[in-house]
């Protein structure tokens, strides 16, 4: 059966762990049916992902702080006032924000075991991520043509390092999205597909919240 709407629960979507849900006020860990669980009954994969994201805060905290420290260390001709294109960066921010919506809709579809819409939303998220990275490449190229290289000043080094690291994270996220679509398509995901999609979603949203900070501190607040 393809792309049809079922009005009654199929046998394979009936709650498999009603007892677990009954006493679980927070309980979202029922996604992890197929994965390993900690002694608390939580998904080890999810615990590891949140721990990883916590550690990523330290990485980006260091990069953002370094930029804040060196943002005034540039020549009079090649500083943020001369280079920033706020309308363009705002559009990029909107693209990444929209990708967060499509990502959360992919997770929601995966929770409903709606694989068709899961793949569609994951694909749209990857496309929007690609658009954001393309915008960043365009921005870097423009800055370079105007004379701002990686070693031009402390400002340029810290700016390219910060936004470059973020761009690499977005690119890795796109690879994760495309890989997840492929693995769903070929049924290569052992265990719960919803949890696999949720892991990618957590990473993707983290990339979005880092950009929320970069957009405000780097682009909108003048030195």
């Amino acid at each position, binding site marked *: 059966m*393809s*792309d*049809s*709407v*079922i*009005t*009654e*629960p*199929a046998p394979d*979507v009936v*709650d498999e762990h009603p007892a677990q*849900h009954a006493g679980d006020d*927070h*309980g*979202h*860990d029922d996604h992890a049916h197929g994965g390993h669980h900690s002694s608390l009954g*939580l998904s080890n994969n*999810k*615990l590891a992902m*949140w*721990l990883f*994201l*916590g*550690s*990523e*805060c*330290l990485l980006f*905290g*260091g990069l953002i*702080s370094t930029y*804040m*420290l060196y943002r005034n260390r540039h020549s009079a001709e090649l500083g943020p006032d001369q280079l920033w294109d*706020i309308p363009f960066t*705002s559009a990029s*921010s*909107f693209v990444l*924000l*929209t990708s*967060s*919506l499509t*990502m*959360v809709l992919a997770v*929601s579809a995966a*929770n*409903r*075991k*709606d694989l068709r*819409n899961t793949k569609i939303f994951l694909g749209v998220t990857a496309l929007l991520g690609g658009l954001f990275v393309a915008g960043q490449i365009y921005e870097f190229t423009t800055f370079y043509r105007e004379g701002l290289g990686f070693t031009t000043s402390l400002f340029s080094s810290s700016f390219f390092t910060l936004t470059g690291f973020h761009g690499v994270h977005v690119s890795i996220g796109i690879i994760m999205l495309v890989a997840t679509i492929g693995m769903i398509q070929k*049924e290569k995901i052992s265990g719960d597909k919803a949890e696999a999609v*949720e892991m990618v979603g*957590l990473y993707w*949203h983290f990339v*979005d*919240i880092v950009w*929320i*900070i970069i*957009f*405000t501190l780097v682009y*909108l*607040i003048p030195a």
Partner: protein
Amino acid sequence: MTDTLETTTAHDDKHDNHHGPTDKQFIAIFFFLAAITAVEVLVSYVDIGPAFLPVLLGLMIVKFFTVVWYFMHIKFDHQLFGRLFYIGLGLAVAVYVAMLSTFQFFAG
């Protein structure tokens, strides 16, 4: 592969209500975030005096936690997941505020 839609089951309604926002609520949250982004950009163009920095930082924090709580589902998940993240976030803020203070970043 079977691509099955089960969007209208009673089970799913119960599932959504129990575990967090529905798709419509996610879309509403997105428009809220987009509106905040528009206000941020607007604020960066108009002169609002000494309120400029607090307003922009406030809007940034609202956007940040809206994504973390709702899109990353931390508000509806087990507390341990949130604690792991907040420990990393808190540590990062503390370490780098201390570092910037050492370099007298806030003095000027």
